[in-house]
């Protein structure tokens, strides 16, 4: 069965510090992974996906199949990055279902 694990429920850093939100997965097929973000009082929205290999709002994430990880990184955190972050794995069989991790609440302190 597929599974997504985010080991840190809470993460607190100071503005300007590097930040890394961890995500590990288990999946028997070829994984397609995403990071979704939920800012305070807003709906969930896509932050980035591994197939795009893009940087969004300074965040990047690299898929490491050997370590089955998809960690989210940003070299210099900003206060506006404070949010709940969810790692998600796409199940490509019937219904394109996403399996979400438990979420990491990131707080960036001034």
């Amino acid at each position, binding site marked *: 069965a597929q599974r*997504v694990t*985010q080991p840190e*429920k809470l993460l607190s850093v100071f503005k300007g510090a590097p930040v890394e939100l961890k995500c590990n997965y288990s999946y028997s097929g070829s994984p*397609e992974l*995403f990071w*979704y973000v939920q800012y305070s009082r807003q*709906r*969930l*929205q*896509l932050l980035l*996906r591994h197939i795009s290999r893009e940087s969004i709002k300074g965040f990047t994430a690299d898929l490491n199949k050997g370590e089955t990880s998809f960690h989210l990184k940003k070299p210099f955190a900003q206060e506006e990055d404070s949010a709940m972050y*969810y790692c998600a794995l*796409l199940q490509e069989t*019937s*219904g*394109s*279902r*996403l*399996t*979400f*991790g*438990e*979420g990491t609440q990131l707080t960036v302190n001034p």
Partner: protein
Amino acid sequence: NAGVTQTPKFRILKIGQSMTLQCAQDMNHNYMYWYRQDPGMGLKLIYYSVGAGITDKGEVPNGYNVSRSTTEDFPLRLELAAPSQTSVYFCASIKAGANVLTFGAGSRLTVL
């Protein structure tokens, strides 16, 4: 273009009451989903639908029912509300062949 619209935004229920959470999308998306969000638990899939007339169970379907009579609407029904169903419920949709979900704003339900 409204995207995914959920109603109500907030609701308090007594144990044993029933209610329906409404979800509508105007993007002609084939697939629709209901998730519940609990602190420290992430989002868990309750039910999903790949098209009108077709629904299937997700990870946590017990205590819920759904229907999909049209492409646009995907209501979630709670028949006998229990305190364990206190949660934030999110509806989402996606076009077949795409892989990015569009979420609604959420419905916060409290069962007392």
